[in-house]
């Protein structure tokens, strides 16, 4: 293999690919990037088997072929090289990198060892990058941490008919972000730790396409495809826990509501149970919290104005759930829809109709 390529082009491409290479080094070949030259294109691929990235840049191919280089070393090398153009060449099982005034000879593993990677030819959903970025960001906090309910540790992406749902829940609260987009039916439970790498890719281009194939989810943005293996299993039917028509509704200024919650939460120290009680009366919400640690109990109370008309109503929540939920909204106001003190509560924002949160109250 022998190619000539612009320095900045290869630098950026290597940086993208290197993020998916295996850093622990359990399997040596996975610490490498696979470089394939063909048709005046260079394809760079790396994977740690959990996630993978494949990206393409143009170059001048003088001789077609494949080679591997250590991802870490390549990323460092190409970001520090000077000069406009670089030649890259395979020579006796080594990689020779030359720029205007430098020459490097790097170790290389046989490219045949690199795992077979198949990238789907067609994608079924296409939407703006920042939309999917937002969807994942706004729900992922609600995912579970309990390994015993492993499925809930992931974030569900579900494409059906005319929309895409991003969902996360830990069994106590649930976040759903809905995007209207032409799509075909598939669903994928993405491990939480794949999401940070994914976000980096989503910043690369304006649009992203996605599809689920063979228990992997593929994202394509520009010339780059990224994939993640999925959590196997069936995600519970989240739609049935989203309440409809809850009759007791209050609407509050989001900032004011959030700071009131944070204020009362100050009294909690290291309690396991952090309950906040909402007492609603005509256009007023009183939040009280009681710390139960030790013999002496401490109490906090904050009253804020809200939009509420109806019978006085009392309900309790885990304050952490409330703070995280209200904090995840961007709109100016939020509405809390309740029915019984023990039935699911829906949180929405008029300014942000895509986002729905459901929180299960605490029995107080």
């Amino acid at each position: 293999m022998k190619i000539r390529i612009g320095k900045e082009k290869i630098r950026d491409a290597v940086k993208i690919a290197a993020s998916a290479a295996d850093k622990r080094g359990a399997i040596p070949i996975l610490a490498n990037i696979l470089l394939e030259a063909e048709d005046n294109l260079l394809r760079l691929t790396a994977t740690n088997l959990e996630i993978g990235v494949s990206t393409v840049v143009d170059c001048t191919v003088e001789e077609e072929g494949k080679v591997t280089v250590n991802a870490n070393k390549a990323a460092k090398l190409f970001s520090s090289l000077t000069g406009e153009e670089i030649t890259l060449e395979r020579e006796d099982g080594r990689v020779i990198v030359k720029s205007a005034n430098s020459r490097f000879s790097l170790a290389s593993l046989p490219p045949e060892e690199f795992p077979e990677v198949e990238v789907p030819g067609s994608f079924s959903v296409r939407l703006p990058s920042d939309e999917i970025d937002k969807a994942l960001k706004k729900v992922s906090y609600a995912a579970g941490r309990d390994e015993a309910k492993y499925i809930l540790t992931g974030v569900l992406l579900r494409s059906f008919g005319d929309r895409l749902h991003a969902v996360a829940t830990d069994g106590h609260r649930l976040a759903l972000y809905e995007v209207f987009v032409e799509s075909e039916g598939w669903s994928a439970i993405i491990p939480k730790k794949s999401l940070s790498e994914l976000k980096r890719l989503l910043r690369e281009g304006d649009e992203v396409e996605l599809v689920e194939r063979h228990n992997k989810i593929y994202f394509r943005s520009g010339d780059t495809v990224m994939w993640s293996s999925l959590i196997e299993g069936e995600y519970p039917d989240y739609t049935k826990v989203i309440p409809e028509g809850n009759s007791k509704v209050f609407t509050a200024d989001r900032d004011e509501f959030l700071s009131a919650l944070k204020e009362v939460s100050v009294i909690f120290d290291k309690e396991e149970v952090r309950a906040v009680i909402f007492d609603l009366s005509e256009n007023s919400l009183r939040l009280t919290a009681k710390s139960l640690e030790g013999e002496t109990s401490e109490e906090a109370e904050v009253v804020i104005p809200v939009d509420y008309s109806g019978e006085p109503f009392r309900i309790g929540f885990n304050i952490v759930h409330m703070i995280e939920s209200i904090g995840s909204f961007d709109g100016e106001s939020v509405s809390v829809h309740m029915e019984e003190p023990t039935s699911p509560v829906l949180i929405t924002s008029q300014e942000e109709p895509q986002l729905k949160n459901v929180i299960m109250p605490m029995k107080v």
Partner: protein
Amino acid sequence: MDKRWSSFIKNLKKRLKPTTYKVVFGTLELLSADEESITLQVKDKTVKDLILKLHLSTLKEAVKEAFGKELKVELVAREEVEKPKQLELELFKEKEREEEELQSNLNPKYTFENFIVGASNQFAHAAARAVAENPGKAYNPLFIYGGVGLGKTHLMQAIGNYIKSKEPGKKVVYTTTETFMNQLIEALKGDKISSFREKYRNIDVLLIDDIQFIGGKERTQIEFFHTFNALYDAGKQVVLTSDRPPKDIPTLTERLRSRFEWGLIADIQPPDFETRVAILKRKAEVEGIEVSDKVIKLLATIIKSNIRQLEGALIKLKAKATLEGRPITEKLVRELFSGEQPEEKRKRRIREISMKIIKETVGSELGVDVELLDSPVRKKRVAFARQVAMFLAKKVGGYPYTQIAASFNRDDHTTVIHAVRKIEELTEKDESLSSLIEKLELKIREAVERSTEVIHSDVDNYVDNSVDN
């Protein structure tokens, strides 16, 4: 209310030592009271447990005196009242399946009609019939005990089937102690203890088999105690079976023991010769096995103590005759059951195993290698474990001193006598040791039971299956 409450407190103080009152009831608060029940809040779960164990009757008396009648007393620990509880989204509800009703688990083949009555089981049979005719009124609870395979389960299920046939609407539930325990554990794990209680307390007739296994299972005993009380108070019938009388069930709490003895205790003895012959004849008829009186009498002579084996022998005989194409004759019987009589064989097996099991159980419970027990090592820990093992070999195994000595590689059997005496003395003084001994004894008995079950040959298994089903 205030007046009655203060008179209740006064009453309570009167009945208790001042220190006890202060420690246990000092923080008592009234949560609610109505015509039927009173709910009290206590400091924490430990205190609640303590009151349930030691002071419940005192509490009830004080309530009765202050309120003029008996009220149901509910205790709630403070943490149970105040702690807010996070509710769950019903994401997995479908899969968990809704509350299954308790199955009656009655096997229709067990009836009074096909129970053969003889001198050995006459009393138990009469008691069972009386209970079946008048559930909850005749004898409550009815406690049937006797050896393996003598028809305890048959009688118990016959009660259930009889009641069901007369009043199909009655809720009759048959369960083994093991199932009861497993359901309890599941309920505790899944936080469904209240629905567990609900299920068991809405039964009209509760039949529990092999209650001896409740020995040593503290939590099960507590739960069973409450279930029992609830049923008993509501006039519902409880029937229990065991392989030994209540007083011989190790580590059974006193209050449960006394409840078991409230009603009637009926034992079943091994059948006499005539009964054995009658049983064999009926079994031959049911199974359609043609067999002469001589053969039946011979079988009845050889197998003495266990009806399941008796019936099994007949099936085994038929199996062998069919397989080998031979007629059922006395010769065939002798071939199959010759030499050692199966009863003795089994007993001998238990013996052999016992010594080994005793050593293994003691070794694993006290953390001492089994080889060390047989060795001359005199380290304190080892020597103690060895003495315990010798004691159990005598008490549980019933071995002669000389045999025990030989098994532990000791020449002098007085060492064993000394060990047994020493442990006896210690258990009288040291409660924790005596409960350890009880626990070990239970474990050994269970292990012996398990191993004798395992030893059954394939033919025996085949026989057992066809007898039970």
